[in-house]
């Protein structure tokens, strides 16, 4: 068995068959597989079907159609088998705040049938790894958000799962917690644990994941490695320039030959183009003519975030009328959707 997760034609419709309520198709016949030991990113805007897919794979809700198997166990007919194989770290840290960190881990271990000697050894190891050993006897209600998240991850690992579902593992956390969690993800990868990761942080997915799937409106838009996805959008190249003195104008930069779109990020201007080789000399000439010194000049490929935006049709919020002359092409997909 090479696949840790196998999903075929998976579908979920809410409110199906309920009188007077409009059915909502949350997941629309998606198919993909996650290899054993792989770190797989699952990206999509809010409402795209990510959480529904995770809920089906973790046996929380049954699908309306199609099949899903985790480590060979069918999520419908062998939910018990699936649950023995998986660890789950949901977006909201669902720890028992009335328990100490130690008691949370002991309860989890007992629930999963971890033998007594092993559960204490494992708890000690995890609490140390997550920097919670000193606080093991303190009620977790008093923990910071990052500490709760680390404890939640430790609880998800108590029974040494083969597949770990991580929903937004580092979202909104302090730097220390982010580093500890990222380090743990790397260690789990090295140990061969399959990781199914959803994240808002596209760059995190780009760095951590072997492959990513992009889901939008319940359908899969793409499944590939971050590098291959970026390569597929090579037309989204850009030239990034920063000036040492004075202010450039988006209108002037946008008027340069071969420039499709201009974006101003901090002290840098990003000029999107299909022909960076033509844009660079034009920028140099224009800066000389305008009396501006170039502080830095780089060519960039598309980031995974840009690929994601392109594929999902997310549009940035509209700027106020006096918010600057920035111009950009219309995006597919129409209305605005928040990334998530």
């Amino acid at each position, binding site marked *: 068995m090479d696949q840790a997760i196998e999903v075929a034609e998976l579908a979920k419709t809410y409110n199906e068959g*309920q009188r007077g309520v409009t059915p909502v198709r949350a997941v629309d016949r998606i198919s993909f597989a996650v290899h054993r030991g792989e770190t797989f990113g699952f990206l999509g805007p809010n409402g795209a079907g990510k959480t529904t897919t995770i809920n089906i794979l*973790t046996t929380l809700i049954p699908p309306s159609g199609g099949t899903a198997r985790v480590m060979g166990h069918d999520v419908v007919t062998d939910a018990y088998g699936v*649950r023995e194989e998986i660890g789950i770290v*949901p977006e909201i840290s669902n720890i028992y705040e009335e328990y100490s960190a130690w008691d949370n881990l002991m309860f989890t271990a007992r629930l999963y049938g971890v033998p007594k000697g092993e559960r204490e050894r494992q708890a000690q190891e995890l609490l140390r790894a997550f920097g919670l050993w000193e606080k093991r006897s303190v009620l977790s209600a008093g923990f910071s958000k990052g500490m709760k998240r680390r404890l939640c991850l430790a609880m998800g690992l108590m029974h040494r799962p083969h597949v770990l579902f991580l929903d937004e593992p580092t979202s909104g956390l302090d730097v220390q917690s982010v580093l500890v969690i990222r380090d743990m993800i790397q260690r789990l990868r090295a140990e061969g644990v399959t990781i199914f990761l959803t994240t808002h942080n596209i760059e995190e997915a780009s760095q951590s994941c072997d492959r990513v799937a992009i889901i939008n409106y319940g359908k899969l838009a793409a499944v590939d490695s971050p590098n291959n996805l970026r390569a597929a959008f090579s037309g989204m190249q850009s030239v990034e320039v920063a000036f040492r003195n004075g202010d450039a104008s988006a209108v002037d930069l946008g008027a340069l030959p071969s420039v499709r779109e201009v974006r101003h990020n901090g002290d840098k201007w990003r000029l999107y183009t299909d022909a960076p080789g033509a844009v660079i000399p034009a920028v140099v000439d224009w800066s000389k003519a305008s009396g501006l010194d170039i502080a830095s000049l780089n060519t960039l490929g598309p980031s995974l975030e840009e690929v994601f935006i392109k594929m999902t049709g997310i549009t940035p919020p509209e700027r106020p009328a006096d918010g600057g002359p920035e111009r950009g092409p219309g995006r597919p997909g129409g209305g605005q959707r928040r990334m998530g």
Partner: protein
Amino acid sequence: MNSTTWWRRLRHEAARAWIIAEKDIRIYYAKPPVLMWGIALPFFMFLSWSVGRNRPAGALIPGLIAITVFFTASSIGPVVIPWEKRVRTFERLLTAPVSLSAILLGKTLAGVVFGLAVTLIPLLVGLALGARITEPFILAIGLVLAAGAFASLGILFSTFPSQNVGSVMMPATLIRWPLLFVSGVFVPLSALALWGRALAYLSPLTYANDIIQQAMGGQGYLTPAVDAAALLAFWVVFLWAGLRLHELGRRRGL
């Protein structure tokens, strides 16, 4: 599934149910809604019913015990489950290798233990005031079965589709009051009209009160065996209905 595997699975599920019950006992017994709906409410209700009556306090004790076990045991499910759904710890249980039946059985056991523990208070007070236990075995059986039936009634209440404890307790209380008033705690079954008795038979509290009365030297209307069988049937039916409704809620993603 052969008999060995079946037996192992049953033991596994029973052990998990107890682990969940133990956790609920440690975490939720001191929660304000549990204390308010489970202890304060029956206590003040009893006071309002007994103050000014020309009956010895000892004679009122069986009724107080029945009311106490009714309110306490049935208050765990509708507090704990919506609470856990709100903070999403219920999901933790649902995704662990344990069946929904075992989870709900664990919640029921927590209700049973809570109901029996709190009921000890009026029982001891009653004994101090002169009440006596004539049939200890029947009293023990009656209390355990009553606590089970009421705790599983609490599980049924908890299927109300809300994650707000107050929103679940409101309808739960609306149902518990009529069950109390038709039960024969205030008016003996023998004094009720035929239609009143027919209504009384619909309330599990009727059988709990009847069996406790008989175990404490009072007059019963039904035999203890009938009371015990009825309480056991309510326990099974409420738990089964609660299980079905929770499964339905999961299918709908509630």
